[in-house]
């Protein structure tokens, strides 16, 4: 007997996983550094290219490529942030936002100038597991992206709840001044946030390079959905970002299946319809976080 909506649910989890890996890092930066980082997509792109180089030229397996991309993207993202955002920390949210837009353009076109416009594919063998009686199939690739995302969420949860750095992060996100007078080195916390956010973006980049390709705009293409998921989940809340990402993913997949043929192209727009509805009902997003002021 076919399970109703099982296939749509799997597709939704896959779409949500791609979004979630990017959204966690994006929302960590928003919560801790208090800035909307429009260059986050480019950190994803860096991960995509590193993953491509690791698999195609390094000859390593995909899990190893993920680790390499995580490390390289983390260090690169942190270094970029130290050079560009950190000196402007006290300038306020708007200058930081503008800086991130400019930085994103520079990075995107810089990568285009270096790597060229060609799309680079990451070859990965895929096995399909069919459960025809239950009415769905799932591929090894889909299981891998869902598994990587759930593992990242689990590690993040342990990091935030069981380590001093993680607890300090939460304290800083809650009230930076209070954290500072409590003896927390908020500069170190910011460093940790940039490392974590950029590293997760690198992992997202590798997965996108597998599903699409490594190209200069692969990360930027995901940015709108990532921002939507972060706001939907409650800007600044990593758990909310994960929930928002999966809500979007499942919403998009289900809408493709059930929207009338004439408007099925609007399935991507459903993400924003969901955002509007949730914010109307719950202005702080799913996690109901307090909206921060600059």
């Amino acid at each position, binding site marked *: 007997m076919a399970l109703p909506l099982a*296939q*749509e649910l799997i*597709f*939704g989890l*896959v*779409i949500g996983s*791609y979004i979630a890996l990017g959204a966690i890092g994006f929302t960590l930066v928003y919560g801790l550094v208090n800035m909307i980082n429009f260059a986050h997509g480019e950190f994803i792109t860096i991960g995509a290219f590193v993953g491509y180089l690791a698999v195609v030229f390094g000859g390593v397996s995909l899990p190893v490529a993920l680790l390499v991309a995580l490390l390289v993207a983390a260090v690169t993202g942190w270094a970029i942030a130290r050079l560009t955002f950190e000196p402007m920390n006290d300038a306020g949210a708007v200058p930081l936002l503008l800086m991130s837009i400019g930085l994103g353009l520079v990075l995107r*076109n810089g990568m*285009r100038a270096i790597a060229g*416009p*060609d*799309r680079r*594919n990451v070859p990965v063998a*895929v096995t*399909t597991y*069919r459960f025809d009686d239950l009415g769905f*199939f799932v*591929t090894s*690739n889909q299981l891998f992206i869902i598994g990587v995302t759930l593992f990242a969420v689990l590690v993040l949860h342990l990091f935030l709840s069981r380590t001093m750095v993680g607890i300090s992060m939460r304290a800083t996100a809650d009230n930076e001044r209070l954290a500072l007078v409590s003896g927390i080195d908020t500069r170190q916390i910011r460093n940790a946030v940039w490392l974590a956010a950029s590293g997760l973006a690198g992992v997202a980049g590798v*997965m*996108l390079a597998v*599903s*699409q*390709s490594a*190209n200069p*705009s692969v990360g930027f*293409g*995901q940015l709108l959905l990532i921002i939507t998921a972060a706001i939907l989940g409650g800007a600044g809340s990593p758990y909310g970002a994960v929930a928002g990402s999966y809500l979007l993913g499942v919403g*998009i*997949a289900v809408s*493709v*299946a059930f929207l009338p*043929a004439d408007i*099925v*192209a609007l*399935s*991507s727009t459903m993400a924003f319809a969901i955002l509007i509805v949730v914010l109307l009902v719950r202005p702080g997003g799913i996690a109901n976080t307090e909206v921060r002021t600059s």
Partner: protein
Amino acid sequence: MGGSVDAANRTDRRTFLKKTGACSVLTAGLAGCVGTEGNGNGDGNGGTPTDEPTDGDTTAGTTTEMAGPERVVIGQPASLTGQWDFLQPAVSQSTDLAVQEINEAGGPLDATLEVQRRDTAVDPQQARQVVRQLVDSDEVHAINGLFSSEIVPLWDFLQEQQVPVVTPWPGTTFLDTRGGDKGTDDLGDDEWLWRTVIGDTVHTSGAAEAMIDEAGIEQMGILSATSAGEEGWTRQFVNWYESLGGEVVEVVSAQGGQSSYQSQLDRLFENDFEAWALSFALEDATTIIRNWDEGGYGRQLLMEDGLRDPGLIDAVGDVAEGAWIAAGSTEGPNFESFLPKFRDAGDASLHPWGVAAYDATNVIALAIHHAGEASHDAIQRSLGDVARGGGTTVTTFAEGKEALDNGEEINYEGAVTNVDFTPHGNVWGDVAVDRVTPDGFENEFTIGADKLQAEIDDY
């Protein structure tokens, strides 16, 4: 001390404001001059200083009527960045190859041919600025470029410029009845755009014909992007396919740039059909084809002409093996001689638009030489003359220049088509349905241009 610094700052600011104001007035004045000095519409000699006879031309005390410019400039709006940037390298390489050959043959009007290439990112607003820059600042004699998505919104603007545009890019049906010289000598009815690539109407009618008559497929589904070009292809294909008796059971549309298209495929393949068509840009098409293969959906795949790219083979040549791709002929009368020269010129991946860019550059150069002057009006008048039938057949600029210098009329036969311009400035060609293999494309069957011309009334 602090007070003096403040005073100095105030003075600096005041000085700065004065200078800025003065510069603004000067700039505005210059802009006004540029805007009124000549609109570059080809009145007389195109308004370009380089068209003036040189001192050397008048040393004998007479002005030579045929004295040409020292250099002729073709403007090339290009997709150096943006979604379609991967297509530009072949077009740039082909254009540069043609320019090199033309200059080696002495150039049009014995002038040096140059290309001024500027990036539009295939954005209509940026394209508008680029065209204005090419016409007003670079004072180009003709333009070689512009995509469908730039031409359609800028149509009136382009007509106002009255600069001949010969473009290798657009497939849009918008141009089916627009452009060209309408087959008359009267410039008044001309529309200043010609294309050297086969239009979507020809592609889609050929694809539909092939599906019905050659493959015997009577029911199809379509997965289409929502971008203008892909939607246009889909709409045209559905019209032709259903007019020939086929049935399109469902069209599933989706926005590009998604990480997975499994939902859209799942929805499409709930329907009963024999083959499905895919109308997406290359980046998304490769994702979709991988998703299709992983999902085991099966059935015959037909892809739109834009996907006939070596990049498709590199990315999914193995999983898409056996799929069909319907595209206008990529091999015209001059293709065999063009191909080795193109390969020697660089390492860009060749595609039909790249070949068409070679034809566009040659046609412009021949038209300039045929015209005997480099004014916009004269070039526009000559474009049809050098490429339509009725003269000595030539396949290169060198051959054409020699024939023209001997007083003969010429008929340029191109590398992608025979470039026999219709009254609307379009070209015909066969439509080939190729089969995808891991090593490339292999011809499955071909629908002749003659058959398509009989079916398409206005083109």
